């Protein structure tokens, strides 16, 4: 088939995608990393080397904010891993049960929060948890637990966890769907062989299904990781760019937005913003590499 002439149609087919992708995604990505090495001095862009990163990690004003945001971000991620993914797996396990009626209905209903925008989700929960409106205290009162109520989004010690749980509520549909698909692809014969050996019900889940869906759980974990470490919208919609109360819900996305754009008294600084973006890039890259080389290649895959 190989002909000596240039096959122009290949270039024509590839060109639009490669051009747009390179110009709007790859080039800005590297340009942002480049910009983090510059600074504005006397209205002029000056090359300053790694000075921005020195400020970010060395200057107490900056480093305190950065570590706060990073720590919060890890907590945010941890809650997703500990709450969202187990609930998603449990729901998928129940849904994939053969001969379960209305499975499609449940599936579609549970997925609804995932399609709503962060703005809707953030405000809806803000209203529901608001002490003024009283839905949450009223409902707790109905079951005799009113004393447990606190303005969760307004208290420093609860706000971040509350937001993480709201985000879990919103996104539980994604692990549910992916695990559901993985569970469906397990052949019936494998399960029947287990049944003959007396492995049924819960132990069939733990001993047969779970090992088989581990690769999907790995994919969900890395998707959660990347999603959480560039999260911004929910915090911004619910708590504003200052990620209150007292920065207790600040994560890397909001920190970068504030730095880059400026907020209230703080002036916007694209170069420091780029430096934070660089740090985020590094974190995500490390996470993805750990997944690709550390986890994915070592995971045992079973030929089904």
């Amino acid at each position: 088939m190989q002909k000596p002439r240039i096959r122009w149609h290949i270039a024509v087919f590839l060109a639009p995608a490669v051009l747009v992708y390179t110009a709007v995604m790859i080039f800005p990505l590297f340009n942002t990393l480049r910009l983090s090495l510059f600074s504005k001095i006397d209205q002029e862009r000056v090359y300053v080397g790694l000075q921005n990163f020195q400020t970010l990690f060395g200057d107490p004003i900056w480093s305190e904010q950065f570590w706060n945001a990073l720590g919060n971000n890890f907590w945010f991620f941890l809650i997703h891993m500990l709450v969202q993914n187990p609930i998603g797996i449990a729901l998928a396990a129940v849904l994939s049960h053969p001969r379960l009626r209305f499975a499609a209905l449940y599936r579609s209903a549970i997925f609804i929060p995932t399609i709503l925008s962060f703005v809707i989700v953030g405000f809806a929960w803000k209203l529901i948890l608001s002490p003024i409106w009283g839905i949450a205290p009223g409902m707790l009162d109905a079951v005799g637990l009113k004393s447990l109520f606190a303005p969760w989004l307004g208290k420093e010690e609860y706000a971040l966890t509350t937001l993480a749980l709201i985000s879990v509520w919103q996104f539980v549909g994604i692990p549910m769907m992916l695990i559901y698909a993985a569970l469906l692809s397990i052949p019936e014969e494998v399960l029947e062989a287990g049944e003959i050996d007396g492995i049924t019900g819960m132990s069939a889940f733990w001993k047969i299904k779970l090992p088989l869906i581990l690769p999907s759980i790995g994919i969900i974990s890395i998707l959660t990781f990347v999603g959480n470490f560039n999260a911004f919208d929910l915090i911004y919609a619910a708590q504003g760019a200052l990620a209150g109360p007292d920065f207790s819900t600040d994560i890397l996305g909001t920190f970068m937005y504030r730095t880059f754009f400026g907020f209230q008294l703080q002036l916007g600084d694209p170069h420091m913003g780029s430096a934070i973006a660089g740090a985020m890039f590094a974190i995500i890259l490390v996470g993805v590499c750990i997944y690709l080389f550390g986890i994915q290649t070592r995971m045992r895959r079973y030929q089904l």
Partner: protein
Amino acid sequence: MNQARTNPLNTAAMHGALILYTLIALFPVFVILINSFKTRKAIFREPLAMPDADSFSMIGYQTVMKQGDFFLYFQNSMIVTVASLFFVLLFGAMAAFALAEYRFKGNTLMGLYLALGIMIPIRIGTVAILEMMVATGLVNSLWALILVYTAQGLPLAVFILSEFMRQVSDDLKNAGRIDGLSEYTIFFKLVLPLVRPAMATVAVFNMIPIWNDLWFPLILAPAEETKTLTLGSQVFIGQFVTDWNAVLSALSMAILPVLVLYVIFSRQLIRGITSGAVK
């Protein structure tokens, strides 16, 4: 042998758990929707009651219609979403065809290059994207958003579509070549119609994140005439925090179009996810 699977107690427990979680998932949406049709007094006195003759009121919707330009926002969101999807699908399918159909030097490398963007979020490059849009004068135009979302959607689109295009039979394409069809005709007339289900999957995957995005509209197109529905409702609600009727109505108006789209496309979406399109 099958007793463990059909035990009625087990079944009841499963339905119980699923109903409980379904209620948790739908409750906030339900509360917002019913309260948007109530008077201010009824919202506070009985937040969980359905609106009745006494408490029914459209005052919130009237405020929203008067104050916010929700039709414009809706139109902007529509334009941005539809145009981005069009370009993602067209460019994505073309590139996927090139990668799946032809053997040329750098094929694998090109595939890897295009796949990079699946894992790296485009938001990292925001600072430079904004600078570029300012420099080209595209800032505060819908084109800025369309370009960004096209770039954002392409990696996964190329990945999924090329998987599907490898399954299109070679005989069919070669028959076309023998009949003298050009490569372009083969692509548009023979291959594209065959991968339509995969295109629908890609479209549905991209639709929700584009429609719901707040970050890029906020940064690239915050002007009044280019606000998307998501940004518009965010700003509107921020201004009307104390007007509960208006806030609830604005939220409901933002929920409805997505819900309608979901009802139309949910089968496609769920089939797309469960068919293992994301591997």
